[in-house]
């Protein structure tokens, strides 16, 4: 048993989970700030982004060291590759939370208007995806990760519906255009968070089973461009 290596992997897992907690909290805070029109929460999200960025660098460095010094194989190699990719996704989740917080800060400056979109419901669905994706990582269970993939379509539909009703709102109430546009961007940010949760779930499946389930098993990348294809 390579005790030091296993200890290193355990430490990395802990670090990623702490970062996952920060990213999840950032999304929830940003969404709560939307509901409450709460500038304080928005500022908390912005401040905490630096923690997430620092965690990203620390995790990358730890994973890089383990790869270089311990030369992992098989399940350990897949784990480290998954951690590096999940790390990048969590950092982007943090960025999306910041984007949401900035939209909310803009909205708070404007008169409150009734918008025909259920952002809190969408936020609940997205948060559940992030939480379950992280649970699947903690438990090392591909079935949990699979369930996250199936939730992505629901969030995509919510985003599409939000687009339709908010554009309609802009047309019928031009004075609410800016608020509607902010809400539209928030819906888009939430949908992006769901995409990152999906990526995390795919990486967990790769780690646990060794299966690459991304992009619905798209055709293989050609080794060389086909003859006659334009390179310019």
């Amino acid at each position: 048993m390579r005790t030091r290596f296993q200890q290193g992997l355990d430490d990395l897992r802990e670090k990623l989970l702490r970062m996952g907690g920060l990213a999840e909290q950032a999304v929830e805070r940003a969404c709560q700030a939307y509901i409450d029109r709460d500038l304080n929460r928005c500022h908390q999200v912005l401040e905490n982004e630096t923690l997430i960025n620092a965690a990203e660098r620390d995790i990358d460095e730890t994973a890089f060291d383990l790869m270089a010094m311990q030369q992992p194989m098989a399940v350990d190699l897949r784990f480290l590759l998954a951690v590096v990719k999940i790390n990048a996704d969590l950092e982007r989740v943090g960025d999306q939370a910041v984007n949401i917080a900035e939209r909310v800060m803009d909205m708070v400056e404007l008169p409150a208007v009734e918008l025909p979109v259920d952002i809190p419901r969408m936020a609940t669905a997205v948060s559940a995806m992030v939480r379950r994706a992280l649970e699947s990582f903690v438990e090392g269970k591909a079935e949990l990760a699979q369930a996250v993939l199936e939730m992505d379509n629901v969030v995509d539909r919510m985003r599409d519906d939000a687009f339709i009703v908010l554009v309609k709102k802009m047309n019928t109430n031009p004075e609410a255009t800016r608020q509607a546009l902010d809400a539209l961007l928030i819906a888009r940010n939430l949908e992006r968070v769901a995409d990152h949760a999906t990526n995390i779930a795919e990486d967990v499946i790769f780690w646990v089973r060794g299966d690459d389930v991304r992009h619905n098993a798209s055709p293989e990348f050609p080794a060389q461009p086909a003859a006659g294809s334009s390179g310019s």
Partner: protein
Amino acid sequence: MGVSIQVQNLNAWFGKKQALFDITMTAQANHCTALIGPSGCGKSTFVRCINRMHETIPDAKAAGSVKIGDVDAYNGTSATQLRRRVGMVFQKPNPFPTMSVYDNVAAGLKLNGFSSNHKQMDEIVERSLKNSALWDEVKDDLKKKSGASLSGGQQQRLCIARALAVEPEVVLMDEPCSALDPISTGKIEDLIFQLKQNYTILIVTHNMQQAARVAEYTGFFLLGKLIEFDKTTKIFTTPSDKRTEDYITGRFG
């Protein structure tokens, strides 16, 4: 050109103790196949069964089928004839210490009863040393420099040249780099890549990164059994057997 090594139901014993159990596998022609596993798992015994060196140990015996191309190693072929087709390189470089570099390579031919004129011999020695990537380092002092005066890495390439001189179809390597530094190891690994064009290589190694670097196929041995045999990328990324995974990830062994 290299030929395939086809092994079927191979069993081997040291006295009453069975060392190999029913091994069946094929090493593809002109590819490198690596054998990995913990010490005492039978991988070296397996390799020594392929060129019938196993039977040189008192009380040792082997049973089963080993084919080098179309030649049945255990039926209708003498061990000497077989070893002309199957070269072997050992863990520790073992040049003849009192012989020059030239004579070390020529010795492989002479020991195998190859008689030739000087010109032919010169050509074979040069070709073998070029094929083992040693020529440029020894060509100026070929007949004066002793084999023992070379560095460890050079000595190992000299042993490879000696094995290649008899133009085998298969080259067996039993931990060829375990006594070498990383630079010499890199040269041998590059050499293995070149040799694959003309020979079939079977390498035993404890260094899993080395197996991953040089071999297209890898077999994992444990307690005398071939647990898993597959493409190297599969073995080192997503092995099918838990025992393989536990070994290559260092959870045991």
